[in-house]
């Protein structure tokens, strides 16, 4: 907040009121100016009605969370006004259609910007006119020239023809002019950074990470909040030569993925908790057959169907316990969209090396959030290392054992079609040749050999994957530990605490399994007070951290109401913990903005 422009616009209304369009137009306008964006959309599992609140934070600096405040509230219905006007502080704006929305009690200094929409547009029937008029008001309040908005509108509507463009431009202009005549613009108008940014969602980033890593087979069954990955893949399939299949269920997805991966195609699929539950058996099978596949679980609030449009970090133990028996796999929880993009390529190289499945834990906050990204950061040519893969005949006529017990546990992996390498992979325990050990005599010695061979594959894992590090103040009073998507909001909470003079640092864990137990123990050994921050009820990460290191945290900040942390929730929790004000060790912030 201290550094430069930092402004949050919230657009509220019901499903079906067309919130997405003004949201998109504003987002494009902001990133074209080189401003950073972090947008969170709070919505319900219905197609019409309910209450949606899209919060778009725009910032000169990187925006690591959707922030704490609403500086401008666009109310598309009375409900939004009623719910949120009280969250506006002095200097904030409420923009609304004065024809049918009335403001209520509010703090001093709030700018009430009622628009006489029917009068402005001369059209009482067009329900979407208020949205466009409001864009005019917002552009004016932000200190933009109308041309900036005009060209954004043109771009947005050009597919729909000239008439749509010009009528929208006219309505927006009326709003802009009305605002110029009646409302006070921001003292510090919207700045401009030199380099324009791009915009993506976390699901776009996951999909693009896959495309960059060379995914050539993607299959899925739709499930919120993971469906965006499928949509991106489907849209870009033809251009990129990616085979995209929608399958009858998640069991089919996971097994089809195993089949495709076995042929040599880099293969990925995504789902959410319930679909992931159905995939678990196949994940174990991939591990036993030693086939690399990426399974993405985009977490939403559970248990069971739960709250399909709300976020949670509730599937950690499901990922850890996916499928029976002990087996090799990688579990990783990216920290934001940008990180998700890069993680996918990294994970593919790892699983091609180790010939095992990977589970990527994203969540609704990352996956459905909209974020700016510097276009040059989108490196879609990462190194591609496929490990001991044999896709073409190498002229080697010697005997081929798929599960050769090598020193590093990793066996050369031939795909079907290669002459001279015919073999059978099996989910039953097998010997080096791939013959089932229970076929004739279930040899305990061979069994033990194969368990140990597979386990050995990951021996050099920690030399290849970066351990998490403590970041922030050196001699901190308090160390905040998070995992996955809370990294950014924790960083912002730290800024707030540091501004208050609290010395604080952070350990943000991303690579979950195998766990960097030594590095984490070392990192936390100097911590004076360790607080764990999790978006779930039971402290799943804390229990896992303890299972791997024995470390017991000093306190917890948890949230399990479906909404993500805002920075002040964490900062408040830290303050309460430091003040010794937390009974039972767990601070649970209240969600003030009821979305």
């Amino acid at each position: 907040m201290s550094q430069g422009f930092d402004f949050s616009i919230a657009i509220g209304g019901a499903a079906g009121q067309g919130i997405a369009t003004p949201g998109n137009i504003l987002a494009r306008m902001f990133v074209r100016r080189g401003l950073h964006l972090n947008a969170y959309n709070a919505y319900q599992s219905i197609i019409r009605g309910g209450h949606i609140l899209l919060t778009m934070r725009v910032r000169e600096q990187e925006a690591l969370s959707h922030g704490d405040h609403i500086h401008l509230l666009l109310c598309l219905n009375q409900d939004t006004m009623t719910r949120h006007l009280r969250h506006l502080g002095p200097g904030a704006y409420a923009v609304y259609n004065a024809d049918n929305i009335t403001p209520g009690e509010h703090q001093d200094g709030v700018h009430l910007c009622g628009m006489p929409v029917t009068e402005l547009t001369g059209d009482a029937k067009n329900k979407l006119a208020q949205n466009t008029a409001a864009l005019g008001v917002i552009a004016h309040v932000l200190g933009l020239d109308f041309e900036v908005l005009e060209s954004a509108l043109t771009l947005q509507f050009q597919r729909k023809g000239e008439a749509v463009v010009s009528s929208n431009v006219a309505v927006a202009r009326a709003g802009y002019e009305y605002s110029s005549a009646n409302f006070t613009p921001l003292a510090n108008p919207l700045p401009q950074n030199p380099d324009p940014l791009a915009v993506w969602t976390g699901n776009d980033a996951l999909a693009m990470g896959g495309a960059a890593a060379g995914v050539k087979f993607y299959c899925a069954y739709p499930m919120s909040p993971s469906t965006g990955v499928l949509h991106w893949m489907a849209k870009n399939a033809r251009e990129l030569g990616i085979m995209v299949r929608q399958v009858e269920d998640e069991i089919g997805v996971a097994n089809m993925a195993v089949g495709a991966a076995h042929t040599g195609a880099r293969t990925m699929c995504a789902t959410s908790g319930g679909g992931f539950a159905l995939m678990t058996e196949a994940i174990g099978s991939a591990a036993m057959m030693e086939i690399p596949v990426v399974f993405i679980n985009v977490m939403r609030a559970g248990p069971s169907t739960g709250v399909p449009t709300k976020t949670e970090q509730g599937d950690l133990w499901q990922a850890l316990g996916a499928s029976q028996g002990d087996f090799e796999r990688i579990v990783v929880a990216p920290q934001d969209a940008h990180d998700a993009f890069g993680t996918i390529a990294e994970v593919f190289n790892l699983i091609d090396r180790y010939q095992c499945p990977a589970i990527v834990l994203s969540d609704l906050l990352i996956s459905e959030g909209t974020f700016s990204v510097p276009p040059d950061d989108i490196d879609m040519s990462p190194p591609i290392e496929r490990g001991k893969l044999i896709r073409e005949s190498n002229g080697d006529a010697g005997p081929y054992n798929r599960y050769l017990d090598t020193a590093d546990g990793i066996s050369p992996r031939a795909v079907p079609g290669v002459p001279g390498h015919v073999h059978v992979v099996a989910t039953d325990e097998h010997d080096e040749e791939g013959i089932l050990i229970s076929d004739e005599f279930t040899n305990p010695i061979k069994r033990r050999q194969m368990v140990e061979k597979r386990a050995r594959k990951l021996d050099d894992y920690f030399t290849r994957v970066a351990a998490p590090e403590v970041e922030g103040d050196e001699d901190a009073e308090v160390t905040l530990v998070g995992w996955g998507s809370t990294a950014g909001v924790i960083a912002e909470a730290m800024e707030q605490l540091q501004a208050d003079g609290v010395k604080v640092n952070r350990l943000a864990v991303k690579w979950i399994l195998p766990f960097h137990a030594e590095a984490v123990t070392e990192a936390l050994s100097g911590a004076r007070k360790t607080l764990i921050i999790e978006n779930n009820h039971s402290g799943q990460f804390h229990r896992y951290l303890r299972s791997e290191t024995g470390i017991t945290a000093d306190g917890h900040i948890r949230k399990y109401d479906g909404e993500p942390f805002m920075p002040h929730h964490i900062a408040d929790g830290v303050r309460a913990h430091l003040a010794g004000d937390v009974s039972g060790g767990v601070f649970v912030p209240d969600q003030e903005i009821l979305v």
Partner: protein
Amino acid sequence: MTIELREKPLTAKDFKGKVDPDWCPGCGDFALLRATQMSVAELGLSPHQIVCVSGIGCSSNFPGYFNSYGMHTLHGRALAVATGVKMANQTLTVLVTGGDGDGYGIGGNHFTHTARRNVDLTYLVMNNQIYGLTTGQVSPSSSLGMKTKSTPFGNIERPVNPITSAIMNGATYVGRGFSGNIKQLVRLIKGAIEHPGFAVIDVFSPCVTFNRDNTYDFFRQRVAPLEDEGHDPSDWKSACERAMEWDDRIYTGLFYQDQAVQSLHAREPILDGGAPPVSHVPEAITREQRDRIVRRMM
């Protein structure tokens, strides 16, 4: 032993797997194994060109006894895995082998959807009307009244009819064989492999250990080859009607075939015009592709 180096044509023996079957002596599955080995040899295929995918069950041990690439996957999931194999590398000949429980019980949903997609697979079901490997429980194809370990008072659920079900779900080559007639099996299997779409062959493959009702004798007394009946495989109604007969006469042979329907990989836009399999195209995307994508994000 690769197709390039080969001097003389392969025979059924060349398709013997690394181990001998551990099926009970007399198990019907031996016949299908032999028939499949003969079929692929007669078609001039090489082991490395074939992938044989199975689930779990006595019958699903098939890939271990058959010399080709093989995947011995999860109970009920063979068709899903096989679809992944075929779609990722359409140049492979993909056989799917398994049991009635595997295919019509737990695997039923994949069966339905593989059929409507017309994936170019040859699906050989060793239907013994029992769960063999788990030592004799009722299967979805067990007859009404059949006593098994899980139905000691008799089965009260009507059996599925794999033939009518395959036809109505969209399979484009649907046959029924019997372990007692290897010649017919070879004819059916060769036709199935050559058929460009989803081919299902339900094979009466007696379980001599757990099914005392549907024995070789039971079938020998009843089987009637459709070949002798002047049956027209393009007529789905007559196919279904004949498939429903059970009591005195049970038809075997090719019930239904439709060669007009395109297979899934033939319809797949990214494989247009003989594109190489996605399993073997280069992973990297081009700078131009990347730039086009990023431009759309700005």
